[in-house]
């Protein structure tokens, strides 16, 4: 089945297999920042932005993305010009193994797009569906607050 989507600003046509999850399709198409941690919607490693809202790609069928706008971490920044969230994660020491990082950054982006100056409670709330077993979350929360501060208009 053909799926038409916009991924990271580019219009794409993908061939999805019947019953295929959006996670599987995106990874097959090379968006490898979208991680697979449980495939049951519980870990947040597969978080993407769908029309700007953070969703779990493993819970969606590829077909549900038809005509919609997807953002993955690949679309945020580059090594020369990282997104402020990416830079803040590096600076705050919020990246240990890095497996949860893309999902965390996208959940944080969805938050900052809506609420540019969140308090700590709002950050915790926004990242609550993203599991991390390495960091204890402290530096992740700090990174999001740091990015918010740096992104101040």
């Amino acid at each position, binding site marked *: 089945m053909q799926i038409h989507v916009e991924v990271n600003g580019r219009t794409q046509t993908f061939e999805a297999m019947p019953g295929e999850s959006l996670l599987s399709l995106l990874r097959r198409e090379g968006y490898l*920042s979208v991680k697979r941690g449980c495939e049951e919607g519980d870990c947040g490693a597969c978080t993407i932005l769908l029309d700007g809202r953070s969703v779990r790609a493993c819970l969606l069928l590829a077909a549900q993305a038809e005509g919609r706008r997807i953002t993955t971490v690949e679309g945020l920044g580059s090594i020369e010009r990282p997104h402020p969230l990416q830079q803040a994660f590096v600076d705050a*020491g919020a990246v*240990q*193994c890095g497996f949860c990082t893309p999902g965390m950054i996208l959940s944080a982006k969805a938050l900052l797009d809506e609420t540019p100056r969140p308090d700590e409670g709002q950050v*915790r709330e926004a990242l609550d569906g993203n599991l991390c077993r390495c960091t204890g979350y402290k*530096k992740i929360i700090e990174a999001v607050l740091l990015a918010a501060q740096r992104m101040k208009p």
Partner: protein
Amino acid sequence: MTKPKSFRVVGKPVAKKDAPALALGAPLFCADRVPPRCLVGRILGSPHAHARIRAIDISAAEKLPGVHAVLCHTNVPRVMRTTAGQGAPEPSPYDFTTFDAKVRFVGDRVAAVAAETAAIAEEALRAIRVEYEVLEPVLDPRQAMKSGAPVIHDEPDAHAVIPVPYEPQRNLASHVDTMVGEPDRAFREADIVLEGEFVTPYAQHTPIETHCCLAEPLLDGRLRLTTSTQVPFHARRIVAQALELPVSRIHVVKPRIGGGFGAKQEVLIEDVAALLAQRSGRPVYLELSRREEFVSSRTRHSMVVGLKIGAQKNGELAAVDLRVLSNTGAYGSHALTVSCNCGSKVLPLYRWPHIRFTADAVYTNLPVAGAYRGYGATQAAFAMESLMDELARRLGCDPIELRLRHAIRKGETSPIFRALGEGSEGVEQSIGSTGLERCLKLGARAIGWKKKWGNARWHAPQGALRRGIGMCALMQGSSIPQVDMGGAFLKLNEDGSFNLLVGATDLGTGSDTVLAQVAAEVLGVNVEQIVVTSSDTDLTPFDVGAYASSTTYLSGMAVRKAAENAAAQIRKVAARLLSAKASEIRLENGSAVAPGGKSVTLARVACHSLYEHDQHQIAGFASHISEKSPPPFSAHFAEVVVDTETGLVKVEKYVAAVDCGTAINPQLAEGQTEGAVLNGISYALCEEYLFTEQGRMRNDSFREYKIFCTRDVPQLTTILVPTYEPTGPFGAKSVSEIGINGPMPAISNAIFDAVGVRLRQAPFTPERVLEALRRG
């Protein structure tokens, strides 16, 4: 080694080398490297906890179009071994083979397939016909050694490879006992004797990336395994053993990996992936689902820890008796060494004159235990630090004072160091550095201990809520002495940069960065000048891998020595260029500097040595073996609120003060501590495997097996207390494991402080708290 006056790179919060790429979502993990048209591997797990496979028919599966290999016990050679990634010969029993005619827990391997798609692979699994003879399972570790209990390892070829007690016919996977002095007499003569039984649950590491491995047949007949492992060299050896191939035929590469925490010190699925690739002649990618990860990877040994301590009224310690019953599950991976660690990482903390320590690890038909951050110290520290709290209360003294008075000091030794090794005698050592006293003091200050401890006003009830405060002291080790070895190789390039090749394994801990800092410090360059290649068995020197809190301490020392070796060669070339004495040349800011201030860049030195005169490669190589295992020390403090109506325990504040020697990278050391502490709090409050009466795990998903998320994090303070360990690189010890041991006792002690009941069975769920309150 003596302490240098100041450091340039060590002790600085240098950014983690791989962090920028990881933050960009770069394809650096195993699953990201799967080539096109790679086959998909799948494993068939047993539905029974204990059964014999009477017959297995794989012919229908083999005939399915798109299926390229089917493995089971009838077509895979039987090689008894262990999955534990330890130094050889391993202290874990050889009670495992790739596929057996018997299954010993729900989820135990029965067969495996490789197929063109996941759907075909799953269809193939369904097409495998297995006839089981269901046997009575052993699910209670206390019943396992009773006479008449079903024997789990009745196969005649299960055996221990080192001379240690091993009696599979009694379901005994390992036994340790050791005694110092006359504990019985000392207990009789003690004024106070306290005793308790502490129960810890089955729990899991749950790395967010499950176990996964890509196996690729190479054109020269070798096999390349790209695998999420903590132990690439042990993985190479063990896969070679399983496939009956020389190690030269196996190439193991560890890419970035999504967490390990001990779970990936196990060579768990590499054997299956390798066999599937070998049989099919195609690349095969095998990844455990989250449910498989829960059920069939590894867990923390569930334990019943019996502890008795004796003291005099004046507070003197008299004796300790520690009895461990460890449930190793269906296989004895790490059974012996984890139970040894219960004694060796907990008993030396206080100066007990008389000691008895016994530990049995028993087989049951439950999921398999293994290495998990803390490695036995976690379970035993719960018991010890709880009873020390009780002792302080009996003596009417501040629990901090009790620890200060009895903790081992610099220059002192413990008879336990010599008595307890890894299945053999241990190694005598004296304490070269300890910051425990400062940890206790700084931690107490940070949590406001003086204002809160014993203060009735602070404790005043608010409705159903009660406040409490508790603490504990901890020690761990740094590497396995006279066993662990790490190697490092370093070469100079034309631009003054270096390639550092290490066997050491970065699990996300940041060890690549830490090791680069060590090299940069010696060579007088920036970390950016050190290009690190690690964990590739074809390219890098050997290293035992990332376990036993060894990488910074042990591999760091190998790097330091290799760098010093290269530095000496640089000085020699520079001496010629600067007409100075080699011994007087200093390396700083990317240059070699002679006493008068004349200097030459390392780039110039490199080009001279590569192209101009007496051409040679400036390169340093060293390996290091640790002679001791210097303990890091730590003090933890917890402030809790207990809701006496719901039983809910909320940790409000948590302080961990840790002495890891010199923190080579303070930000990473903090991160290690925060991660370990939060995992420990989560373990203390909510993590626990639940089983059906048939031994099947009931809560095998993150929805049912809850781990802490952002909303649950208490206010967490980490304090690094610097000391200088003379045997470590630039004074470093270890930091990765110790932090996980504190929360269970610190929170239990705080709960007692709040509501006056002792919780001796973890996790401290609302039901358990309410039950304890009812009993009073």
